Each structure stands twice: as structure tokens, then as C-alpha cells.
């Protein structure tokens, strides 16, 4: 082999070696912002309990102030299948609506832009939202088909369009469902913000986000929308091949907080998943607290709440030790 051939080949080998070495390194996970974050875990055995009282207790415990604010409740409304647990339960949304009104919010709306199904109103109907939530039609906005405005500086894109209802909100409450996810590992309050992206511009599914990268998109959405609060419906979640084809899993909890990273990390620990092994959680650690020591646990102690959610084979390595 002469020198002219050796040098590029050696360069390629060195590059491949570096990539291989890098991929074996533990990822650097940010310690997040200064201070600690409050996360409240409230037990709720069923949807028939007084959920408004429980959510009120959780929101107050986290010190959230909403007086005079325009609040957007963002459920996880995915699929026509009322027999299973794909969607955030209507009882949780109705209870959250009651609580934010009671706390003095100037306006409370409900909005969602499902990733695959176009008929958001009938989807909400099937999920019993219309019959459970009084004057639902006046409160609900199909975020896939809302009017939009461009926002600059999203994940390196020149601009990204978002629904005007989302941009007008002072506080977005991510009312997520506690579920496993066949691409991301788990889908909780941060991933739930995918529904803020309008299908009328980005399609069904919102394939643009896949091209940006699912972890990178979750980070960008949570960076763009900082005035958020999470209420995760873990009364009955979904395990196995989530977020659509999994099976119900009773966890009996509502998990709440203003730091969505900390809320999702807590949910993961309840599900028996190591949040530090989920790529998007690693990325989002710059926005909030992933480490258990930096989370002020309120309400129930995590001890005794862990209930391992089944994981598909591709994600078996996520299991918490």
C-alpha cells in the first residue's frame, strides 16, 4: 500500500474508531437549572374519585399561580378506541378545568392536534370529552386546523408555525397519559407537546418532527414553550407496545409539577423505567431536573408506588435497576 492510499484509509479507520469510542461513553447529562423542582404525586385509585380535589391539592402543593392567566389544557387525544386507555381520561380534563377556573384563571381552553387522525372533534366525542365537559364545543380548539403564526428559531429551522391559540396562552397545561412509546421509550408530559404542531402545515403525521429528530423536537418544543405545567394521568396508563397498541396498566397516581423534566422523570421511576436512559430526557435535562436528588417529592413518597410497566424488547434496557 502506498502513502497516497494509506492516509485516507487511516483517516477513515480513525474516524470510525472515534465514533465507536464515543458511542460507548456514558452521555453527559446536564445538572439542569439551579435549585430543586417540586413534583407532587397524588394517589387516585380510579376515575370515579374526587379528582378535582386531588388536582387542586397537587397544583397548590407545587405553588402554581394562575390568577388572571389564559390557560390552555392540552390533553393527549390520539385514537378512536374508547375501550382502552390511549387518551387522557375525560374525568381528568374535566377536573383540571374546574381547578384552573377555581384558581382564578381568566380563560381556560382545551386544545389538541392529534398526530394521525384528522377528525379531532369526533375523536374527542368518542373519548367522552363532549359528554363529560360542559359546553365542550365552546372551549375546544382543534390545534391541527387553527389559524397559525410563524415562530423563529425552532431546532435550527428558519421558522416553525404554531396555532394562535397556543401562542396566546399564558400557561400550557400538559395533561398527558402515562404510556410506553415504541419510538421514544415513554411518552409523558414533554412528548405530549407534539400535539401543539399544526397538521394543516406539517401533515398527519407531523413528519417534519421526525426529520428534526424525536428527541430534538421534544427539546425544541419544551424550549419554545416554557410557561408550562404538567398533570400526568397515571391512574390507568399503558404498558407494552404503546402509545396506541399497548395494554392498560393501573398505576393509581396523578403526577404534577411545573418542571416537566422532573415530572416525567418521576413518572418513569414509577413505571420502572430509568429516565436517564431515555434519549430525549437526557437532552431535556438542561431545562429541568432529571436527577432524583434535585426533585422535591411532595404528596406520596415514591417508595411503594413503583409498578413496572412492560417494555417491548427494543426498550428492555431502559428498565430501572
Amino acid at each position, binding site marked *: 500500500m502506498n502513502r497516497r492510499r494509506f492516509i485516507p484509509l487511516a483517516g477513515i479507520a480513525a474516524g470510525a474508531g472515534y465514533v465507536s469510542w464515543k458511542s460507548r461513553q456514558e452521555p453527559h447529562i446536564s445538572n439542569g437549572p439551579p435549585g430543586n423542582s417540586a413534583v407532587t404525586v397524588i394517589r387516585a385509585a380510579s376515575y370515579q374519585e374526587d379528582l378535582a380535589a386531588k388536582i387542586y391539592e397537587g397544583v397548590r402543593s407545587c405553588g402554581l399561580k394562575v390568577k388572571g392567566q389564559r390557560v390552555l389544557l392540552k390533553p393527549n387525544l390520539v385514537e378512536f378506541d374508547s375501550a382502552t386507555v390511549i387518551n387522557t381520561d375525560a374525568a381528568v380534563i374535566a377536573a383540571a378545568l374546574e381547578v384552573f377556573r377555581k384558581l382564578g384563571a381568566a380563560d381556560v381552553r382545551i386544545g389538541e392536534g392529534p398526530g394521525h387522525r384528522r*377528525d379531532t372533534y*369526533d*375523536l374527542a366525542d368518542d373519548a367522552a370529552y363532549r359528554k363529560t365537559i360542559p359546553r365542550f364545543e365552546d372551549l375546544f380548539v*382543534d390545534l391541527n386546523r387553527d*389559524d397559525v403564526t*410563524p415562530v423563529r428559531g425552532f431546532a435550527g429551522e428558519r421558522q416553525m408555525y404554531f396555532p394562535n391559540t397556543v401562542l396566546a396562552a399564558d400557561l400550557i397545561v400538559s395533561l398527558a397519559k402515562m404510556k410506553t412509546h415504541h419510538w421514544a421509550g415513554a411518552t409523558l408530559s414533554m412528548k405530549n407537546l407534539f400535539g401543539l404542531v399544526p397538521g394543516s402545515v406539517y401533515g398527519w*403525521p407531523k*413528519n417534519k418532527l421526525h426529520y428534526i429528530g424525536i428527541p430534538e423536537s421534544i427539546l425544541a418544543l419544551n424550549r419554545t414553550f416554557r410557561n408550562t405545567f404538567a398533570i400526568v394521568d397515571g391512574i390507568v396508563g399503558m404498558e407494552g407496545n404503546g402509545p396506541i397498541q399497548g395494554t392498560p396498566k393501573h398505576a393509581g397516581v396523578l403526577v404534577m409539577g411545573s418542571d416537566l423534566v422532573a415530572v416525567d422523570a418521576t413518572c418513569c421511576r414509577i413505571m420502572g423505567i430509568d429516565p436517564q436512559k431515555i434519549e430525549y430526557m437526557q437532552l431535556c435535562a438542561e431545562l429541568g431536573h432529571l436527577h432524583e436528588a434535585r426533585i422535591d417529592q411532595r404528596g406520596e413518597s415514591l417508595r411503594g408506588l413503583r409498578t413496572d410497566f412492560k417494555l417491548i424488547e427494543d426498550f428492555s434496557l431502559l428498565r430501572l435497576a
Partner: protein
Amino acid sequence: MAHSVTEADLDSRLDFLKRTQNADGGWGYFAGKQSWMEPTAYAILALKGSPHSDEAIRRAWKLAQSWQMPDGGWQPGSQVRESTWVAALGVIVASCLGCLDVAGPKTVPWLLSTKGQESRWAVRLASYVHLLKTDVNVTHSGWPWRPGNSSWIEPTALTVVALKRSLLWKSDHHVNARIRDGEELILSRRGRDGGWNSGNPSVLKYDVPSYPETTALALIGLQGRGNENLSEPLSAAEKLYGQCKSSLAKAWLTIALRSYGVAAPESVKVPGTPDILLYALQALGHPSGNYRFLGPGSPS
């Protein structure tokens, strides 16, 4: 509450569309909202040929034409200055209004130049050597929602219809080749249950069930394939209609079934919301509606 279809159902849908036209000539997704290309296009198709609608159509088409971009694509609404999948609707509407000489020369080349990213040679190579984990066939080129993204059933089906209609204006072997390839992509993505979902029949080796709306759109895109046996997907479409809880999906299925001469269910539910797309699709799928505008057309 659903009831049997009557002529009054068509009239009421068309009256609603006329009443809810925005001052700029377009329609929003919901009455009173900003105008968008998609509801405007379907409203034009639904209203075409109905009494006293010429002026409404003229104003709507004028606005729609203003959304044609310099690159030949069409923007989805006034606020979004980017070419997207709605370019196909621009060609379909232009064809039905006899205006393909306006939309065709720039938009057909834009549609021909737009492909799903999965058909790039690097992706095909990665799939061939099993470096890429994908359950879809990447040997065919379809259309994405937006340039730079992957192909999906809905934009592919609508673009195939648009290109078929463009052949009424001008025959072109490049257009024919992309039509055939688009149809092959649709066929390759059919699920085991006979229908289609958004575009992936399986994910990580798990079968994904079909959706009624995408099954309808796939069938709409496959019209005019001659001897192709589509009895299984048509049966799947009928079955999905029976199970379906979405009024919008039922409206799409009605158009698809009627287009194939299959007796479409003769019942219709009054929309619970002022959803322009739903009103327009229900009008198109009515027995006396313009559902054939979403077919390949025939030379006049």
C-alpha cells in the same frame, strides 16, 4: 344522529358553504376562521355546477391562485409562505374549472420534482444492506406532506389524482411514470387487514391497523388502474365504514366507494361543528354530488 340521504342534505351543505365564504373569497377550516387552501379547494369542488355559485367559485379561485408560489408549489394558506402537499389540490381544482393552462405549466413540474426522502439513493442503499430499520418498501417514489419529508398515503393519493387529471391537459411520459410509481407505492403500503393507515403497515414488526380516511384516499388515488383487482381493499373500506366513528372519515369513504360504483351507505350525520371540510366532503359524496372530481377524469 344519522338519517337517510335526501336531496335536501346536498342543498343544506352547499347553502352552508355559500353562507360561510370569507370576504377574501376563501374558506377557513371552521366558519369564521382565516382562509386555507384545503377547505377552499374542497368547497370549490363541492359547489361547482350548483345553482348560483359561479360568483362564489370565481372569488375563491382568484384567492387560491394567489397562493401559487414562484416555485410552482402552492402555500396552504395566507399565513404560510411555503409550498406543501396542497399543490395537488391546486391542480385538481384547476382541472375541474378548466383552468389547467393556468396551474399546470408550473405546478405539474413542481409535483414531478417533489419526492419522498425515502426514495433517495442513500436511503435505498442503506435499506438494501439492512443498515436502515424500516418496514416499508423504499423502491417507489411517492409524495410527502412537505418537500424534504417522507412519502405518506394522503399526499401521494391526492398527487396521483392531480397528475392523472393533468394528462387531460397534456400527455407526458414523465407524468405517466410518476403516476405508476405513486400507485405502486400505495399498493406496497397496504396493511394485512386490506386497508391503509397513514403510511406504515407495520412498526417494529407489529402490524398497524388501517384507518378509514387513508383507506378511502388510497382507493381514490388508485382509480383508473384498469384490471387491478381492488376487491379486498374495497371490502376493507366497507368494513371500516361500519366500524368508523369519524364523520370526516365516513365522508371520505363514501366518496371512495361511490367512485368505484359500490353502493355507499345512504345515511349521513349532521355535522356537530361548523367544519367546512366535513360539509364540503359530505356534499361531494352525495349521490348527486361531484365525487367524480376526485377521480382521474375523462377527456371531454
